[in-house]
C-alpha cells in the first residue's frame, strides 16, 4: 500500500516536453521525405505543441543553424532561418513591438514568405516605370 507522502505531485512539464523532441524530429523526417517524394510542404506551429521551455530549447539545439538567416520587415519583423537540415526552416514572426506572434517550422525548399509574389512584382514594375518616367 502506498502511503500518502509517497504519492508524487508532478508539476514540472520539462520531462514530458523533452520526450516531445524525438517525436517531432521523426515528424520532420517524414515531412522531409514527403517533400523529396512529391514536393508536399509541411508546417508546424510551435504554439500548438505542448513544448515547455526546455523542450523548445532542446529542439532548437537538435536542429541547429544552417546557411540562411533572413530578416523580413513586414508587420514588424520576421526571422527566417534555415536549420542545419537543409529544407527545414525555423520562422519567427514578431509584431511592431517585437512581441512574438507565432513560431513555425516549415519543410520546403523556400518558405513562401521569402518568395517574391507575381502581383507584387507587377506593382514594383509599375512603380519603377513611373520613377524612370519621372527622371526622364
Amino acid at each position, binding site marked *: 500500500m502506498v502511503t500518502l507522502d509517497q504519492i508524487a505531485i508532478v*508539476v514540472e512539464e520539462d520531462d514530458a516536453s523533452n520526450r516531445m523532441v524525438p517525436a517531432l524530429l521523426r515528424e520532420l523526417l517524414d515531412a522531409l521525405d514527403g517533400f523529396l517524394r512529391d514536393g508536399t510542404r509541411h*508546417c508546424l*506551429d510551435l504554439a*500548438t505543441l505542448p513544448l515547455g521551455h526546455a523542450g523548445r530549447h532542446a529542439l532548437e539545439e537538435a536542429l541547429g543553424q544552417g546557411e540562411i538567416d533572413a530578416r523580413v520587415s*513586414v*508587420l514588424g519583423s520576421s526571422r527566417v532561418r534555415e536549420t542545419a537540415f537543409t529544407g527545414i526552416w525555423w520562422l519567427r514572426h514578431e*509584431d511592431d513591438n517585437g512581441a512574438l*506572434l507565432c513560431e513555425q517550422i516549415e519543410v520546403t525548399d523556400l518558405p513562401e514568405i521569402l518568395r517574391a*509574389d507575381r502581383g507584387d512584382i507587377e506593382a514594383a514594375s509599375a512603380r519603377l516605370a513611373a520613377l524612370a518616367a519621372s527622371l526622364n
Partner: protein
Amino acid sequence: MSEPSPAVDEPTVLESFQQNGFSRRTFLKFCAATASLLALPAAEAAVLAENLATKPRPTVIYLSFQECTGCLESLTRSFSPTLEHLIFNVVSLAYNDTLQAAAGESAEAAREDAMRKAWGKYVLVVDGAIPRPLDGAYCVVGGKSALASLQHVAEGAAAVIAVGTCAAFGGLPLANPNPTGAVAVQDLVRDKPVINLSGCPPIPEIITGSVVYLLSFGVPELDEHRRPKVFFGNTIHDRCYRRPFYDKGLFATSFDDEGARNGWCLYELGCKGPTTYNSCATMKWNGGTSFPIESGHGCLGCSEPGFWDRGDFYHPLSTGRWGSGMGEKLAVAAVAGAVLGGAAAVAGRQRQKARNDASTQHPDHPEAK
C-alpha cells in the same frame, strides 16, 4: 447557411492588402499569426490563407446598444490581427458609430445602403444588451429603438456576432433588478447563427480572430453558450500558471500575506477561474503582457452568464451562497429538532406506559392476580 458571402464588387482579402500597399508577404504573415491565434492545425492554416486570398471581404455592420464601449476599447488594442488590418483589409466596415467619420443621417443612410447591397450576406456585430419593454423605448439611437434596429439589421445578416457579456448574456444591464428589461442578442435573434464572444470586455484577439475565422471557414464550433470552443474550450483554472499551487494545496489567504507574495493560488480569495471558460491564461491581455491572476487578483468570471448577480467575487467557490443569517437559521433548525425530539420521546414514554398499564391488567399477568 454556414459562412458569410461577399458584398458586391468587394476585393478579396489578399487584393485588399495589395491595394492598400501591403505585399503578399504581409498577407502571409497575417495569415500565419491568425492561424496560430486560432490554434489551427497545419492543413487548416493553409486553407485559411487560401480562403482569404480568394474570398471577397464581407461587409460588417457594428451596432452598439446598452454598452460602455469597453468592448470596442478592447478591440482597438488587438495586437494580432490588429484592428487596422481587420477593418481596412479583412472586412468592409460599413457602420460603427464610434469609429466612423460619418455621423447623423448620412451615417444611417450609408448603413442602409451597405445593407441593401449585401442583403443576406453581411455580418452583424452587436455590442451591448437590448431593452425589450415598451417597444425598446429605454434605448433609442437616431430615433430608432435598439430592439427595432437589431431586428431590422439582423434580418439581412448572414451571421450575428455578439461581442461582450452584455450582448452575449445581458451582462450589466440585465443584472438584478434589470430596470430596463434588458435581454441578450440570442434572446431576440432566433433564425440566424449567433456567435457569443463574452467577456467584460472580451479579449481583443478573440474578436478579431473570430471574425477572420467566420470569413474563412464559417461559423466555428460553439460551446453550450454559443461561444467558439477554440477560445472558450478551457477554464482559466485549467490553464492557469498558478494551478500547481492549487494542486499542492498552497493558497493565498489575504491579498497581502506570504502566499499572495509567493504567487500562490487565489481560490480562497474567491477566484472564479474553475468555473470560467476563457483564454485569458493563455492569450493574456495587451499583447500578451499579463492577465488578472498574474496581477494578483482572482478571476471574476466575467465571461460567464449572470456573473454580476452571484455576489461572490471574494468568496471561495466551494462555499454556500446564503447571505447573512445562516447561523440564526441553523439555530432555529436545531431548536426545532430538539422540540421534535423531545415530543417524540414523550410520545414514546406514553406509548410504553400505556403498554405497561395494559399488560399489568391482563389476567395472565402475575401482578393482576
